[in-house]
């Protein structure tokens, strides 16, 4: 069964460093998303991506964040200068149809900023 994959599973970085979180969505999906979950809290939307551009972003997704689909399979989230409060689990998700259809989530990347 097709699944969303994410690498790395755990990333430790120092404050101020850049990190890139990688995702491989399900191959025939067209809509891609990043969410984050601070430990013990709810899952929060960061950004949606369709047709090679951002379709919506939340207020969390400030200038320090960027997304890219560099080739036909990968979908990346970059944080330029990490802060302590960026420590969270980051989930990538993909959907075949967008708005009304279920999103399938990857296993997540746990980002720890020290």
């Amino acid at each position, binding site marked *: 069964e097709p699944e969303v994959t994410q690498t790395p599973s755990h990333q430790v970085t120092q404050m101020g460093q850049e990190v890139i979180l990688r995702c491989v969505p399900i191959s025939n999906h067209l809509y891609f998303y990043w969410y984050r979950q601070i430990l013990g809290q*709810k899952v929060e939307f960061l950004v949606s991506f369709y047709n090679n551009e951002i379709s919506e972003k939340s207020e969390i997704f400030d200038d320090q964040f960027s997304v890219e689909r560099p080739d036909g399979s990968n979908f990346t989230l970059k944080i330029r200068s990490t802060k302590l409060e960026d420590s969270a689990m980051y989930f990538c998700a993909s959907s075949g149809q967008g708005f*009304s259809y*279920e*999103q399938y*989530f990857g296993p997540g990347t746990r980002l720890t900023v020290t």
Partner: protein
Amino acid sequence: AQKVTQAQTEISVVEKEDVTLDCVYETRDTTYYLFWYKQPPSGELVFLIRRNSFDEQNEISGRYSWNFQKSTSSFNFTITASQVVDSAVYFCALSDYSSNTGKLIFGQGTTLQVKP
């Protein structure tokens, strides 16, 4: 504005008991979709069900059932004859037409502990 409320933070039951997880949502749209996801201790988010705003029929899948009531803006989830493997955090989520991108608005989650 869209909002999902899961008032039950934690629920603890003994195996074989039935348990209902509550979800109340807010949206101004008439077209919207509701979802339930399961987050087991391993951390991944597992899709359980999607329901659109025009279909108020209850749904049953094995030991799982869902009760959607537009009149009370609720989409509750019942596990019948709970098992230890059902222990997880359960999230209710909403996607509505005002956000045509499909972003999900999640509730705070309910932690279900099923004891043997």
